[in-house]
């Protein structure tokens, strides 16, 4: 069952996800960033469902493990759509939207097939290992896509502060999760990444997005070259 700390962390996560939706609605940005809000709304529902499953079956149950990994993969796929929508925003003036969508869908299908092929050859416990491998690869591909998008932002001199902050926070999120899953893949018996690291990383995106919606006006502009670690 859940301890008081875990209960607090869970409740805080749910509250933060709801805050993003409220901030987006209050700043009239719900439709403009529809996929970001759709992702946050789905995350909210998933978190509530996970909470119910833990209450019914327990934290270490197989039911929770299966629901956790499947919903995680589903949320990651949804996060791809967020990324595609940000690509569409950045490449808006170049009319390259259809190429971006096609490329992203092909990459997603390729990642799923690659993960399935790797696990099919190496394990008897196909489903659970497939989910960890798939999540690690999905997050990593998400990270690579975010990296490319950040490069495009620097190259095309995209100045919208909100878009820049959404992309950078996604980069931190994808890389943190890809690293965590890789760590779990390398050391399957390690428990602390799942217990402490995953909930802490889970806070990053709702905090950053709530801040961007609430504090950064849509018309705010920023020179992206100033943000690059290596000066351009």
């Amino acid at each position, binding site marked *: 069952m859940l301890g008081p700390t875990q209960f607090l962390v869970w409740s805080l996560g749910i509250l933060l996800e709801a805050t993003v939706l409220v901030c987006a609605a209050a700043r009239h940005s719900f439709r403009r960033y529809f996929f970001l809000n759709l992702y946050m709304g789905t995350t909210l529902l998933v978190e509530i469902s996970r909470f119910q499953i833990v209450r019914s079956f327990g934290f270490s149950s197989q039911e929770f493990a299966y629901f956790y990994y499947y919903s995680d993969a589903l949320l990651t796929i949804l996060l791809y759509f967020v990324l595609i929508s940000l690509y569409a925003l950045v490449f808006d003036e170049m009319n390259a939207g259809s190429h971006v969508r096609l490329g992203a869908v092909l990459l997603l299908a390729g990642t799923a097939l690659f993960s399935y092929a790797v696990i099919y050859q190496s394990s008897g416990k196909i489903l659970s290992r497939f989910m960890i491998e798939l999540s*690690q690869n999905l*997050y*990593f591909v998400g*990270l690579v896509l*975010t*990296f490319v998008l*950040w490069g495009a932002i620097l190259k095309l001199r995209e100045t919208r*502060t909100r878009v*820049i*902050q959404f992309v*950078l*926070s996604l*980069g*931190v999120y994808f*890389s*943190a999760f*890809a*690293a965590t*899953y*890789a*760590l779990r*893949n*390398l050391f399957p018996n390690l428990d602390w990444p799942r217990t402490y690291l995953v909930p802490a990383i889970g806070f990053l995106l709702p*905090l*950053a997005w*709530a*801040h961007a919606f*609430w*504090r*950064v006006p849509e018309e*705010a502009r*920023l*020179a992206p070259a*100033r*943000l*690059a*670690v290596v000066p351009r």
Partner: protein
Amino acid sequence: MMAALILVFSAAAMLQFFISYCRSLIATSAKQVLSAEVKDVAGIHTRASGDDFKRIMQLLHLCPARPEDRNSVPAIGAYFSLLNFLRATLARIVPSMRAWTESERGQCAYFAAVALERRISFSRHMLAQQIDA
């Protein structure tokens, strides 16, 4: 092998994205002009320096937190710690890195001073509301 490569690449990318994200937070507050009162309280005479950061953060914790600061202030605090780490290690070997960390630390202090100004006006606003009630 694959997982190890992903781990190394992801950790490096996370560092790069985190630094850029913190700099985007700092850039949004860099345009704001500090009042003479806050400059005086924070001890900023000409330009904010990294050495002012700790004192400004202590003052910041004395004021009631604004909900909007919940994310940005801890992120900049973590960024400042990272800069201190770089200053104590890599910057000793690479002189250009020392100048860069000093400049970044100063900007972190300026960001904290802007947050302090916001919190002071927030406290004043709350006090005025209480007096009115």
